[in-house]
């Protein structure tokens, strides 16, 4: 599980490097980008093959190559919060109206609002986030979750109290506090992400833990119709969400990595799509005179992005969407 975490981080860093290489003096270095793309591929393989589900891995707080400790990230690091049982007050913070535009999909891959994970937002929910994180440890994969069907609100909330007592699996999300919140919140309606384990615990059901629908825009969305008892704490995350510029929405792809892509795209900005456009044959693909045709762009372009992006179909799909 740490591998998945690590893999995600490495993917973020790698994409940041590829992006930054565009503006480096002297043109894009083929060798370095090739190595970065190999790392990207390895990390992606690990990420996909790791059976640990439920990783709403938030990207770094707005930086392409984020340091392990995100600034303004109060719930720093997964291990920090794991020991804390979710306080009831925090749980009350969970319920939130669902963002209307967010499609109702399982695993709406935590399009983590990376840049949005602000300290302010997280602070009040810090502990809840931690709890959510712990809850994530028990969240099951999309398929299993789907199989279970949408949990009841109580069921969703059961994940909460359950988690801290449950063996804390080290597959927690690293940073985005909001991710964790969203992740942990089980949607009464349609959220199949956070299917609580059948042995949902004995803890009293917390007051309407409103599951959070996470779209590409990510955090803060709860399923529609979810009561919001703790409206006051909710305003903060919602505000942050609205403050987010350029939060694009995912098309609700089933897979996790799409959300992460959208997440990462928020790091790179909309110009990331330009990255793809150039490498996919538009723009300047000329090389020395005699070579032409379908060859990928010369070092002046992003030679390696093609193999990279092509390998990551969901990624490129999401990117193209922008």
């Amino acid at each position, binding site marked *: 599980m740490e591998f998945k975490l*690590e*893999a995600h981080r*490495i993917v973020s*860093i790698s994409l940041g*490097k590829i992006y930054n290489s565009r503006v480096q*003096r*002297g*043109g894009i*270095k*083929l*060798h*370095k980008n*090739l*190595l970065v793309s*190999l*790392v990207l591929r*390895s*990390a992606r393989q*690990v990420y996909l093959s790791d059976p640990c589900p439920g990783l709403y891995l938030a990207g770094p707080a707005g930086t392409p*190559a984020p*340091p392990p400790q995100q600034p303004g990230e109060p719930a720093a690091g997964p291990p920090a919060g794991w020991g804390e049982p979710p306080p009831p007050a925090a749980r009350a913070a969970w319920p939130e109206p669902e963002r209307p535009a967010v499609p109702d999909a399982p695993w709406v891959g935590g399009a983590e609002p990376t840049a949005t994970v602000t300290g302010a937002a997280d602070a009040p929910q810090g502990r809840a986030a931690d709890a959510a994180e712990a809850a994530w440890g028990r969240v099951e994969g999309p398929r299993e979750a789907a199989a279970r069907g949408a949990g009841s609100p109580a069921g969703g909330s059961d994940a909460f109290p359950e988690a801290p007592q449950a063996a804390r699996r080290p597959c927690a999300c690293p940073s985005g506090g909001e991710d964790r919140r969203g992740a942990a919140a089980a949607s009464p309606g349609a959220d199949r992400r956070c299917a609580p384990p059948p042995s949902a615990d004995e803890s009293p059901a917390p007051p309407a833990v409103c599951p959070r629908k996470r779209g590409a825009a990510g955090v803060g969305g709860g399923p529609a119709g979810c009561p919001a008892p703790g409206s006051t704490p909710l305003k903060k995350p919602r505000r942050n969400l609205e403050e987010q510029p350029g939060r694009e929405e995912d098309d609700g792809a089933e897979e996790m990595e799409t959300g992460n892509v959208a997440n990462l795209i928020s790091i790179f900005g909309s110009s990331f799509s330009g990255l793809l456009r150039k490498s996919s044959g538009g723009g*300047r693909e*000329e*090389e*020395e005179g005699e070579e032409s045709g*379908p*060859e*990928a*762009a*010369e*070092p*002046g*372009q992003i*030679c*390696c992005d*093609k*193999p990279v992006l*092509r390998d990551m179909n969901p990624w490129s799909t999401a990117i193209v969407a922008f």
Partner: protein
Amino acid sequence: MVHILPPLNPCQTYCPLITAPQPRTDIISTVEFNHTGELLATGDKGGRVVIFQREQESKNQVHRRGEYNVYSTFQSHEPEFDYLKSLEIEEKINKIRWLPQQNAAYFLLSTNDKTVKLWKVSERDKRPEGYNLKDEEGRLRDPATITTLRVPVLRPMDLMVEATPRRVFANAHTYHINSISVNSDYETYMSADDLRINLWNFEITNQSFNIVDIKPANMEELTEVITAAEFHPHHCNTFVYSSSKGTIRLCDMRASALCDRHTKFFEEPEDPSNRSFFSEIISSISDVKFSHSGRYIMTRDYLTVKVWDLNMENRPIETYQVHDYLRSKLCSLYENDCIFDKFECVWNGSDSVIMTGSYNNFFRMFDRNTKRDVTLEASRENSKPRAILKPRKVCVGGKRRKDEISVDSLDFSKKILHTAWHPSENIIAVAATNNLYIFQDKVN
């Protein structure tokens, strides 16, 4: 005895282009002794070449034997712009290679990412005087005023060292040139970029032969690039090139015009227990060097130096750990880009000792015979003239002794990528960012 040279300084006699010194442009990017060791050339990120010359020994100053002083400085490459691709071409000198001396002048090749240049460095210590048609200042004289004829004579003048570009080999590389190597026939040389190697004749600048081309038809299938290439020191038909996958190919140009098929293929099987996300990066070879004997090749990857016997392809005969303590830090080194640093390696004149650089301004020497190794540091504090370099040690855990340095205290911005060893004596040149250090054996 230890000499320290000050940071590079465009103070020398001949400087065709004066540029305002900026800290970044002084970063040394290549160091190379010539074939006799009399001259030492350095190239920097600003496109300049500075050549040092060894002082002749004098009886009066025995302890100043063999000091290197600046001999010539010139601007080799300028930043350029490729309009077709909207790319800036860096002026950084990637490699310098000397030609063997055949007359009074010195010749060297210097290259940036795209263009190789042949420079002639010559001395002028006389100048003609007594022209008939020109006066002393060079102004033309009215022929009508000339009543007598005289023969111009050469009179001594202050020594002037001039560097002139004799050949410019351009427009032959689509990718970034990483190596140049002069052939033992002294008539040809090769230049290698990420995907191709070209063979040039010194006299012909508008054509080159492509001898290696590993570019796939579909760039998406690209899996490896060429990282370094070198000609065999004695066999003019043989050369090697290393790849980003940790392999070395030896090619014979007699076999075919395009040496896409190697004659020998050197690869060590990967140790599966060391597998990580970064296995591929750290196995990428950053430098390959033939031994002076031509019998061995040495390769440098991120953590090790390996010596290969040309007669054995399946594994190296020797492997030296340069800084294995970094193996657990690869992720951080990936983040800060240090994992992409390309360290070079060098043989000493007798092929008995190999040297390579590390971080924190450390460099390492390995004695192949005694199997002893030493870590030394190139820094101003430790390098007073005539002081003896003290061996350094990196503490890899456990109790740190007094003069050891812990891995976490290493300064990764101080890296020694480029070093050179005098061809016959124990004099080494070590480039530490923008400082050049020259060390030599203690002389009793």
